[in-house]
């Protein structure tokens, strides 16, 4: 691979250089022999799919991962950080997607967090407010330093956190998905601030799934795939399609199906609508979501992390109370005041984390019966009926071991996921909502889950699969809608779709 970036920035000195960096977690390689160069006064975009290695590399730079192979130099001197504090002292700061501001403190206190100016041992409030105002103004941020942090928009809070990191002496700032929660004008304001930071000679790493944003602000773009750095290139010379092509890779060697080709969607536009979602909204999480969920069809909902998918899934199961909009099952409006109401309305839900779905210290049969206990017996438990039902599921879904008295914690992850599914299937619901149904599963278990969901669909169940992994949606869905920043921005039905087009739409 040609070292394109060398030519890009001419002879501007490297602020940070990494060479031959490898890192693995329990035998699984996360980074393989990566070289990475960050120059002074540069905005460096970092892109790649989930698990491509971007975050691992940044965590090494920020001192979070301390054991790795390879060398790192800062301003030409070799460094090896032992902790995040080490990295911070060396001038490397990070702004995470989940902001770490203190909402109940003032803007000034947040800027000065942990090092308030004092006079005679007492906090010097006047100096703090004045200092914070000046510092923020120097970055072009106009805000009252006495305002309570929590009362500001997310966009402003993020700028103030960025200001705090800079104020603590950072010369390298890593921004993780900084635009995922921002409106277009807020993105523009962030970009202005970033340009003024760049003008002062400091360096910025900009990690994002939003390729338009990356290409708009970065000087250099580096693409990661499967733990390798694929290419670094001047952002001015490339377009989105070029980047996506290299993120996904063509004709490559992975074992798993890669969905780079076209997948024909088997949509059923005439099937009856089971669950109609109209204008659903919940604060900042998502707004104006309308969906028709049809019998015998799998609806895939795809979007990036933080796009509102998770919250939408919870709203469909009565866990999150929507602020606007309606839900109707078979044409009848339902109000889901809690999860029990959703269950009674015929909605089943499998959340993305097994931990929030299963009872690890209980036997398998109790895990399977919990959602249908009321149908087995109103008042009294019927343990023999519970066990019989559980044995039937264990056999039908080939759960190993098949003994239903086994404690759930001794099952493998894939088998646990099957139990999480089985708990809803004794009396099939009208609608099955699954959030990230195959996350973290090996290929065999994934195939099993896909087969089970296809069979349920063919039996006429309405299924919704929400995922931030394009492969998951493509492998399961008959129709796909794309969410972006809390809104539905695209739909694919009755046509062929590829991963490129899905990524492009998001």
């Amino acid at each position, binding site marked *: 691979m040609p070292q394109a970036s060398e030519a890009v920035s001419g002879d501007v000195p490297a602020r940070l250089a990494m060479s031959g960096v490898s890192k693995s977690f329990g035998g699984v390689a996360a980074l393989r022999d990566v070289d990475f160069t960050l120059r002074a006064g540069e905005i460096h975009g970092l892109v790649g799919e989930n698990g491509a290695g971007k975050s691992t590399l940044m965590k090494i730079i920020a001192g979070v991962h301390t054991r790795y192979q390879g060398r790192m130099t800062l301003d030409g001197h070799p460094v090896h950080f032992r902790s995040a504090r080490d990295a911070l002292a060396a001038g490397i700061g990070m702004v995470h997607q989940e902001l770490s501001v203190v909402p109940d403190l003032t803007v000034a206190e947040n800027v000065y967090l942990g090092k308030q100016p004092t006079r005679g041992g007492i906090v010097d409030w006047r100096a703090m407010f004045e200092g914070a105002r000046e510092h923020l103004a120097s970055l072009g941020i106009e805000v009252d330093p006495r305002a309570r942090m929590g009362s500001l928009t997310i966009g402003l809070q993020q700028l103030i956190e960025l200001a705090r990191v800079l104020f603590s002496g950072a010369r390298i700032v890593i921004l993780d998905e900084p635009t995922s929660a921002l409106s277009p004008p807020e993105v523009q304001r962030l970009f202005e601030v970033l340009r003024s930071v760049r003008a002062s000679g400091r360096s910025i790493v900009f990690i994002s799934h939003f390729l338009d944003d990356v290409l708009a602000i970065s000087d250099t773009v580096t693409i990661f795939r499967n733990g390798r750095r694929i290419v670094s290139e001047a952002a001015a010379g490339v377009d989105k399609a070029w980047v996506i092509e290299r993120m996904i890779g063509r004709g490559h060697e992975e074992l798993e199906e890669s969905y780079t080709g076209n997948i024909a969607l088997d949509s059923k536009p005439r099937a009856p609508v089971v669950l109609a979602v109209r204008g659903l909204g919940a604060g900042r999480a998502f707004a104006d979501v309308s969906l028709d969920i049809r019998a015998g069809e799998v609806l895939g909902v795809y979007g990036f992390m933080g796009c509102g998918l998770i919250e939408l899934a919870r709203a469909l199961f009565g866990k999150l109370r929507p602020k606007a909009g309606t839900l109707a099952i078979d044409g009848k409006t339902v109000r889901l005041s809690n999860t029990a109401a959703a269950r009674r309305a015929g909605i089943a839900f499998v959340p993305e984390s097994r931990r929030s779905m299963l009872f690890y210290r209980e036997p398998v049969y109790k895990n399977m019966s*919990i959602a249908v206990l009321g149908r087995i017996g109103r008042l009294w*438990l019927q343990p023999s009926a519970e066990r019989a039902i559980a044995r039937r599921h264990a056999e039908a879904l080939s759960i190993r071991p098949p003994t239903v008295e086994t404690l759930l914690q001794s099952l493998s992850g894939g088998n646990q996921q099957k139990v999480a599914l089985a708990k809803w299937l004794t009396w099939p619901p009208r609608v099955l909502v699954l959030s990230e149904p195959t996350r973290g599963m090996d290929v065999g278990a994934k195939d099993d889950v896909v087969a089970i969901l296809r069979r349920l669909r063919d039996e006429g169940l309405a299924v919704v699969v929400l995922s931030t992994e394009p492969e998951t949606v493509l492998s399961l869905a008959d129709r796909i809608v794309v969410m972006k920043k809390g809104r539905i921005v695209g739909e694919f039905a009755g046509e062929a779709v590829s991963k490129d087009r899905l990524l492009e739409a998001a």
Partner: protein
Amino acid sequence: MPAFLRSQMRNIAPFVTLIALIVFFGVSSPSFATLDNGANILTQISVTGVIAVGLTFVILCAEIDLSVAAIANATGIVVAYFTLQENYVNIANVPLPGIAAIVLAVLACAFLGLVNAVGLTVIGIPSFIMTLAMMQIGAGICALLVRGQIAYAVPDFVATMGAGRIGPVPWIVIVLAVFLLAGHVVLTYTRFGRYVYMTGGNREAAEYSGVNVKLVLGAVMVISAVCSGVAGMLGVAHFGSAQQNEFDGYLLDAIAAVVVGGTSLFGGRGGIGNTIIGLLILGVLNNGLDHVEIDSFLKILIRGLILLVALIINVYVQAVRENEQSN
């Protein structure tokens, strides 16, 4: 330690403790291991026991109820307040027929439990804080109704249940047995009981399984308050008087009985069987210390130490379990 023993540690440790205490006191004092004293112990744990039945539900849900003793006290005073008192009792009370007084008292404790339930589930106040407030409210109700006086009369039915005997057996022990049995049946054999365990074991998972977690939590707070109320009425009859601060020691005893018995403070593990062992440990300890030559002030310290050891075991067992889970 073999895996089976380790997994049963929660149940074995309290049982071994109980046997050790009985052997120790039996050897140290000839008056301890007698049939009469056995009946004494059962009678002495009765009031605590009825409170502990309700508290077991609450602790299984990984919540706590600090208002049990205050609600017991208030309910005992309410039932006395609606009963005709002797002339020399200087309370402006409202005499009603016995059955009416009992119904009012039960409604009163159920209402206080409902307030706890609403505070916990609707408003979202942590049970620790909510029931701390209720503890004060209960004390306030007691103070207002008796105004520093002592009432003696309770309805006949309550007097029989609290202080009467059927043959050689005190009614209060039978009431305790009925409550323990009912609690055990509800927790082990009903759908609600399963929900209690599941809510305590993993509240989020229960919610994602379509269990109405708030309803379960609200119900256990009411159950706890009603059990306390019944214990309060029995107690007033048993002690022969209704007055302020009468039940102050019972909060700690009831919590101790549940926890010493091995019910997990983190919820989802334990049950009435554990509570029975816990009650017996506390009963034997309190009674036995009276049978041996010991500084009466030291007694309090010893009880505290035993409780501490039980808590250490309780938390330690949980830690072992979590270790196994993460491996």
